[in-house]
C-alpha cells in the first residue's frame, strides 16, 4: 500500500512543511532530546495524563507528545472546514428529525430499526426540540487522510468528545519551547476555542433564561480520566466546574449551591453519559446526576449540552448513512467521504467480509478505543480465525472497512525522524452558529507501521497547525 507522507513527495518537501525542513535540519541532536524531555516535564506538571474519551487505559499514564507538528495549508483546511461543518449540520438535523417526525425514516433513507431500536435512542426526549434545534453542540469528527486530496471520516462523536485539552496544551507547549516557529510561520491560533465554546453554550440557553446565562460544566469527578480537561475548560471559560451533588432541582429550575446561596443554572455542559444524568429518568442507581433534571429539561427550564439522546447519531451502524443525511437534509453532496463500510448484519455484506477478512478492519458497532477490533493486514491467522467465529456468531455487532493506507507525518523516534501514521479530530461547535477552530487533535501511532492511534494502544499527540495562507 502506498502511504501518503504529508511532508515529503519523493524527495520534494510539500509546501506547508517547507519551513519545518530548515527547523529540523538545523536542530542539534542534544537540543532535540533536551526539548523532548522538557515537553514531557511540562505535560506532567500541568497534569494532563488522561486518556481520550472511551479509550480506557491507565488514567495516570502520560500520553507521549511528539514535537514534530502536523501542518495543513490554508486551502487544505478550507475544504476540511466546509466538510466538517456540513457534517455537523446534517447530524443535528438528523437528531431533530428522529426525535420528531422521522422524515428520513419515512422516506426510506435509513432503516427505522437502526435508529429506534438503538440503545442510544432516548425515548424520554422524543417530541422535544432543544433550543436552536441543536442536539450535538460539540461534534468531534475523526478524520484520516490517504492522499493529497483524500480525506475520510472514520467516525463522528456527537456526545461529549474529549481531547480538546490536548489541542490547547500542545500548542501552548510548542509556543513556549519554540517561539521562533510561531514568528516564522503564520499559524492560525487555537486558543480562541474556549471563548467560542462559551459563546456556543450561552447561545443555547433556554427561552426562559433572562439576562446573561449561567453556564456550568458537570463532571463525574476527579477520578474520571478526563477530569483535567473538565477543569481546564471551566477555568478558560470562567464558569463553575460542578459535580451532581452541587446542583439540585427545586420548583421548575436547576440550582447550584454557592457560598452566596443557590444560583439558577441555565446551561449544563455535561461530561457524563445520558444514563447517569437523572436517576428519576434513567439509571435509578446513578449517584452522579441530578434527580429531576430531565423534568426541568423537558419543560424548557435548563439546557443540557450535548442534549440527551444525541448519541444515536454517532453509532457506528448509523455512521454509514451520514452521506445520505447530508443529501437528505441539506440537498448537498458530502464534501468529506465516509470510509466504505460493510454492515455485517446484512447477509450479503457478511459473505463479502468473511471472504476478504485478512484485508479488512473489523470493529464492534458499539465499541470504542481500538479494543475488540481486528486489523486484518496486521493480524495473525489465528486472530483472523477467532474473529471469523465471532462474526458468524453475532454478525449484527460488527462493521468492516478496508484497511486504509493512513497518511504519515515525520515523528521524532529513537532512531531520529521517521514517518508515523496519524489521524485528526477537530472540534466543531454548534449553537446559534457553526464554528470550527483551525486545528484539532492529531493522534499519532508511535509504533512503526501501526495504524492504531488510540492512546490506549501506544498512540501519542502532536500539535496541529493550520497556516494562515
Amino acid at each position, binding site marked *: 500500500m502506498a502511504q501518503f507522507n504529508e511532508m515529503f513527495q519523493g524527495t520534494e518537501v510539500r509546501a506547508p512543511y517547507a519551513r519545518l525542513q530548515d527547523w529540523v535540519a538545523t536542530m542539534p541532536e542534544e537540543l532535540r532530546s533536551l526539548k523532548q524531555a522538557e515537553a514531557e516535564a511540562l505535560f506532567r506538571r500541568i497534569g494532563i495524563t488522561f486518556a481520550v474519551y472511551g479509550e480506557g487505559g491507565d488514567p495516570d499514564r502520560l500520553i507521549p507528545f511528539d514535537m514534530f507538528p502536523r501542518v495543513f495549508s490554508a486551502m487544505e483546511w478550507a475544504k476540511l472546514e466546509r466538510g466538517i461543518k456540513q457534517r455537523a449540520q446534517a447530524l443535528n438535523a438528523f437528531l431533530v428529525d428522529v426525535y*420528531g417526525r422521522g422524515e428520513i425514516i419515512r422516506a426510506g433513507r435509513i432503516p427505522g430499526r437502526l435508529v429506534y*431500536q438503538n440503545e442510544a435512542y432516548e*425515548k*424520554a426526549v*422524543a417530541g422535544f426540540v432543544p433550543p436552536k434545534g441543536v442536539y450535538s453542540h460539540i461534534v468531534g469528527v475523526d478524520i484520516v487522510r490517504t492522499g493529497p486530496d483524500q480525506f475520510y471520516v472514520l467516525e463522528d462523536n456527537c456526545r461529549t468528545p474529549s481531547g480538546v485539552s490536548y489541542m490547547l496544551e500542545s500548542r501552548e507547549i510548542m509556543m513556549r519551547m519554540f517561539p521562533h516557529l510561531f514568528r516564522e510561520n503564520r499559524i492560525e491560533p487555537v486558543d480562541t476555542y474556549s471563548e467560542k465554546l462559551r459563546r456556543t453554550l450561552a447561545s443555547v440557553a433556554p427561552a426562559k433564561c433572562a439576562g446573561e446565562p449561567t453556564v456550568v460544566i458537570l463532571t463525574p469527578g476527579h477520578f474520571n480520566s478526563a477530569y483535567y480537561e473538565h477543569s481546564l475548560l471551566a477555568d478558560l471559560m470562567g464558569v463553575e466546574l460542578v459535580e451532581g451533588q452541587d446542583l439540585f432541582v427545586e420548583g*421548575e429550575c436547576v440550582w447550584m449551591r454557592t457560598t452566596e446561596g443557590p444560583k439558577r443554572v441555565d446551561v449544563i455542559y455535561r461530561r457524563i453519559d445520558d444514563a447517569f444524568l437523572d436517576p*428519576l429518568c434513567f439509571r435509578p442507581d446513578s449517584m452522579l446526576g441530578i434527580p*429531576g433534571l430531565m423534568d*426541568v429539561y*423537558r419543560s424548557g427550564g435548563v439546557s443540557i449540552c450535548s442534549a440527551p439522546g444525541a448519541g444515536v447519531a454517532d453509532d457506528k451502524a448509523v455512521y454509514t448513512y451520514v452521506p445520505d443525511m447530508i443529501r437528505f437534509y441539506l440537498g448537498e453532496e458530502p464534501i468529506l467521504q465516509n470510509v466504505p463500510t460493510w454492515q455485517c448484519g446484512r447477509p450479503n455484506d457478511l459473505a463479502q467480509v468473511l471472504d476478504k477478512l485478512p484485508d479488512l478492519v473489523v470493529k464492534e458497532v458499539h465499541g470504542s478505543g481500538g479494543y475488540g477490533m481486528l486489523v486484518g493486514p496486521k493480524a495473525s491467522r489465528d486472530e483472523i480465525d477467532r474473529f471469523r467465529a465471532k462474526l458468524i456468531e453475532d454478525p449484527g455487532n460488527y462493521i468492516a472497512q478496508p484497511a486504509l493506507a493512513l497518511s504519515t507525518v515525520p515523528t521524532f523516534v529513537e532512531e531520529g525522524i521517521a514517518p508515523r501514521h496519524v489521524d485528526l479530530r477537530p472540534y466543531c461547535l454548534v449553537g446559534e452558529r457553526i464554528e470550527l477552530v483551525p486545528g484539532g487533535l492529531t493522534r499519532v501511532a508511535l509504533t512503526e507501521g501501526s495504524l492504531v492511534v488510540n492512546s490506549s494502544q501506544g498512540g501519542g499527540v502532536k500539535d496541529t497547525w493550520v497556516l494562515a495562507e
Partner: protein
Amino acid sequence: MRLTVDHVTRYAYDHPVRSVVQSHRLSPSVFAGQKVIDWEVTVTGGVKGAQHRDGAGDLVQGWTIAGPVSEIAVAVRGTVETTDLAGVLRGHRETVPPDCYLRETTPTRADVALVTLARSASGEDLLQLAHALSAAVSDAIAYRPGVTHAHTTAAEALALGEGVCQDHAHALIAVARIRGIPARYVSGYLSASADGSAHEAAHAWAELHVPGLGWVGFDPANRACPDDRYIRLGSGFDAQDAAPIRGIARGAAVEVMDVTVAVLQTAQ
C-alpha cells in the same frame, strides 16, 4: 362508567430526609376512552415543579420537598368518565415511534422458555396473535400475590408459574417482542369488582401495537382487554420505566412505603 379514585402513597422514614425529588405520571391519559371530571394530586410539604407531556403522551409532573421530613404522603383523588373501547387506545397523541418498543429491557429479556411460549401462540392476523399471546401468558402464569417482587423478571415469573399483574405484563411484553410486535408496559387503576379483587386496584397491563388499530391493551392477569373499569395513567418499556411515582431522597434513612387505593364505580 364513572370511576372515582382515592390513592394514597405514604413514605415513612426512620430518620428525617431532605431534598426529596419526585417525578409523577399520575394523570389519566388523554384519549377517547377517558374524560377527566376532576383530578388532583397533592404532596405533603411539596412544591410543584416542572411539568411536560412526554413523547409517549404522558403528563409528567415534577415535585420537590425541601425537608427535613419524616413522612410524605402523595394523594391522588379524582373522578374519570370512562368508555369501553375494547382495549384500543383511540385518539391518544404521541410521537414515540412504535418500533422503539421492540427493545429488550432487563425484566423483559427473552429466555428459552419465553421463546417457546411465544412460538406456541398462533393467530390468523396480528390482532388474533396478540390475543393468543395474552391468553398463553394467562395460562402460563397463575395469579398469586407474594411469590414475586418488584425486580422479578418475566423469565423468572414464567419459571415460577406464578406472579402478579406486573409479572403478567412483563411476560406479555417479552413474548410479543419475540414475535416482532412492539409492546409496552401500562400503569393505571382497575375498579373493584363484585368478587372483591380490589387488591389490584393499582394495576398494570400491557399494550401491543397492531397496525391499523394502533396500541391495544391486554390484561393477562384478568384475561381481558382493558374496558371502562380501567383508568390508564402512563406507559414505558417496563414497570420501572412506567412507574407512576419515581422519587429519591437525600439522607441515610430506611424508607417504608404504604399504599392504599380505592377505585369505585359511582352513580352519575
